[in-house]
């Protein structure tokens, strides 16, 4: 029997606002325990929350980028549960009226087909503190208490762990490009939980689902889902009854472990947060926020393919990093030679950056200087090979390509008469090669050309050299 899995993801992203969601404390990561705290985020008696407008803005921005509809009327709610890292013993979150609903992300599968993963909702909420287990007992650090989060809940539209990975990758790149989150999974600023069930392939009736917590790297996401698929299939094949449960991915042992069954699930007793007023979100504000959304990486890649005619693969590589994509975009525009711009950036420039562990921000030359180099080559002032030397120099010194060429005397020689003299001389000095050529060894031409380029220190126009060598050799 063939099976397929049904996967949905709940992604929490810490928003990169300067202050917390309900008070003015800093959101900075690290810091002495309990140094970024106040009566509000410590849940002291009498303190009241106030909503950070920037958090709402970031939530809306995310929603717009994920094709959601934005509510005009939002509300904050309380989720009640007892836990020592929760300073008020309730979390202020959104239940019935989240700020965004009904969005989607299109992912591209390996065979090139597109698949739409629908997003059910996005809401804003606060993070909890952190428990520190020490020999002296468990301590609580409330620095993270009240750091703003958005939770992005997908529909169970994914059918394989790979699709889940593609979805999370794309979501991560969008959140990062929007500037709403730094998406550092290793620091916990992007966290993922998943729902998975397994059913007969082609069935429309979902199986019993398990909620998997702690999928905090792409590796654990794939491994946990793979583990679950095996576990579910085994149970189904052996006729066991699966029960709805919450499990936790244990990275050290590479298995999921039961946390609680459905019967043990908390009743969070959600109800409206009376300390905060209704969220009125005007269409004007939504429009204003929409204007601040930058071109997203996948949109940019699509544009590069469409308007610059570069291969999809190249467009993908060039848009992995925002600075790289901007550098390319400008160079392509100025030089009007996108292919050359892409070749230089993905080739020699990337190689040199990798060797020196540098990034695009560190480049000493500008897109207009790279464009100048491309123009020099296209105009035949220098050869492509000389160009490679020039770019190395530009990379090291930041000098303009023209001054490098002048300084080093690298200007291409296009003078046919001068080149002809050299051609004749080299042919004369190498009778063996001429003989080889006569005997049908066409490669001999390349040898002669190489010697000529050496003689001219690479400055002779290679096309002229080739043409002259051919005609001279054939004359003999």
């Amino acid at each position, binding site marked *: 029997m063939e099976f397929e899995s049904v996967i949905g993801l709940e992604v929490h992203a810490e928003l990169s606002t300067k202050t917390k969601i309900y008070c003015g404390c800093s959101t900075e990561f690290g810091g002495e325990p309990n140094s970024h705290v106040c*009566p509000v985020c*410590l*849940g*002291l*008696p*009498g*303190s*009241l*929350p*106030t*909503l950070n407008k920037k958090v709402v803005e970031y939530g809306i921005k995310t929603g717009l980028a994920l094709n959601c509809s934005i509510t005009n009327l939002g509300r904050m709610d*309380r989720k*009640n549960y*007892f*836990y*020592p890292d929760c*300073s*008020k*013993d*309730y979390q202020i979150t959104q239940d019935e009226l989240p700020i965004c609903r009904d969005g989607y992300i299109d992912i591209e599968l390996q065979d090139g087909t597109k698949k739409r993963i629908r997003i059910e909702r996005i809401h804003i909420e606060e993070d909890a503190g952190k428990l520190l287990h020490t020999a002296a007992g*468990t301590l*609580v650090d409330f620095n993270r208490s009240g750091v703003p989060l958005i939770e992005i809940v997908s529909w169970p539209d994914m059918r394989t762990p790979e699709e889940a990975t593609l979805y999370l990758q794309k979501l991560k790149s969008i959140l990062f490009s929007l500037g709403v989150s730094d998406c550092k999974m290793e620091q916990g600023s992007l966290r993922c939980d998943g729902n998975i069930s397994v059913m007969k392939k082609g069935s429309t009736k979902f199986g019993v689902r398990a909620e998997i917590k702690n999928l905090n790297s792409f590796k654990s996401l794939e491994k946990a889902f793979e583990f679950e698929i095996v576990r579910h299939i085994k149970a189904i094949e052996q006729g066991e009854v699966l029960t709805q449960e919450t499990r936790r991915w244990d990275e050290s042992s590479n298995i999921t472990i039961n946390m609680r069954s459905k019967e043990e699930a908390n*009743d969070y*007793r*959600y*109800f409206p*947060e*009376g*300390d*905060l*007023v209704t969220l009125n979100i005007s269409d004007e504000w939504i429009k204003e926020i929409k204007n601040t959304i930058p071109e997203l990486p996948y949109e940019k890649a699509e544009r590069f393919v469409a308007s610059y005619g570069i291969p999809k693969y190249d467009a993908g590589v060039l848009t992995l990093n925002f600075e790289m994509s901007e550098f390319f975009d400008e160079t392509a525009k100025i030089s009007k030679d996108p292919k050359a711009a892409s070749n230089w950036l993905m080739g020699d420039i990337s190689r040199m950056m990798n060797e020196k562990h540098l990034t695009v921000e560190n480049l000493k030359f500008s897109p207009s200087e790279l464009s100048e180099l491309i123009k020099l080559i296209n105009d035949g002032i220098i050869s492509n090979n000389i160009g490679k030397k020039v770019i190395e120099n530009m990379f090291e010194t930041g000098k303009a390509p023209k001054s490098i060429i002048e300084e080093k005397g690298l200007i291409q020689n296009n003078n046919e008469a001068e080149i002809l003299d050299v051609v004749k001389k080299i042919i004369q000095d190498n009778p063996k090669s001429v003989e080889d050529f006569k005997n049908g060894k066409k490669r001999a031409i390349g040898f002669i050309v190489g010697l000529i380029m050496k003689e001219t220190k690479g400055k002779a126009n290679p096309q002229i050299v080739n043409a002259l060598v051919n005609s001279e050799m054939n004359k003999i």
Partner: protein
Amino acid sequence: MDLNLYTAHELSDLISNKKVKVEEVVNSHFNRIDSVDSKLGAYLYLAKTEAIDKAREIDNKISQGGKTGRLAGIPVSIKDNISVQGMQNSCASKILKGYISPYDAHVIEKIKGEDGIILGKLNMDEFAMGSSTENSACRVTRNPWDTERVPGGSSGGSAVCVSAFESPLALGTDTGGSVRQPASLCGVVGLKPTYGRVSRYGAVAFGSTLDQIGTFARDVEDCALLNQYIAGVDQRDSTTANIEVPNYQSSLTKDLKGKRIGVPKEYFGEGLDEGVRKAVFEALRVFEENGAIVKECSLPLSDYSLAAYYIISSAEASSNLARFDGIRYGHRATEFNDAVDIYYKSRSQGFGPEVKRRIMLGTYVLSAGYYDAYYKKALKVRNLIKQDFSRVLKDFDAIVCPTSPTTAFKIGEKSGDVLSMYLSDIYTVPVNVAGLPGISIPCGMVNNLPVGLQIIGNYYREDVLFNIAYSFEKSTNWHKMKPNI
């Protein structure tokens, strides 16, 4: 000169005219507290050193001709659920034993900013849940008019200290009548402002959508004076409104001619003490004599207020009181096995029976399967009650009714009967449910016990309440009655 017998505005004149020193004012109040509070039990904490230091500081400022605040040297006492930096904030509960507030409530900042002097913290029903102050885990508070009787609650200590001349002004909180009902039972003035008029920041939450900080005084002018300086928008309380606070002093003396006063017939039904009813009707005659038009009106939905109130306030309380968990501050059980055990034991030991009752009720009405039947329905009822009031307040400038159905009852009389205790707030609760302002003023005596008259006004129209109340006060002497203590 018994300076504690003066009202705040009288003291203010004496101080600014350099007739008396602030230190004398403060000392006279502490002397009074020392002599009577052992019999009354209003205070849980006295801030003698801080108060006297502050008094000397203000005296110095005055003698050097420096500028002082508008409450300079005026003593104010604070219910023990409003945060004052460096002082306990026990909410009269064992669970907050040892907790010292590291910050000032918004209202305290305001009072300190105007050079008011904080005398101490006052007894109350535990977490403001109750109508007699008998639910305090700390001590019994007695009514100055008859020490065998309760002072009302939950702000019992606040009403008593003002009534017994231990403080000219006090702050309380009012979630369902906790300022107005004890004011009524102790024969003083008590205002619950509009929800949103005074910042709740720093007042320990009971029912977040119902709570409001209110003021106690011995006359309307004093009540208006204190309210003047604590009212207004606060960035830290999102539910406060950015509406200008009018000058209350100038609204006091406005003519009552043509003012329309509604008398809701539903507030004079079964359970209302005959003496109280007579006193209130007598008061209506005074309003008419002063030029007001008094007419019957109807608020049929008020009958449902108490039910809606106990669902909403308990639901909110069950969540608001979750933070008292023994982890970060207050009482923690000494022996426990794990975190859950800390919660169970600390809360079982720390909360009193009434608080537990409300937490359980509130948890129940928010539970899956009961939410729609109770909590959601209560919210709908609340909306209808608001509409009921809005309709009547289109035709009337104010609504007048009794504050409480009876005068002060005996200590222990109702403590075994939860429902009859709840019914003592039947006329005050609807006002909180609707979010309107209400004031209680003394309007008569029955068997040497004070009767309170409640005036309810439209949103943010505290000025109208002060106007009507002041007019009544000028025509009567009820506010001048002194308990024999």
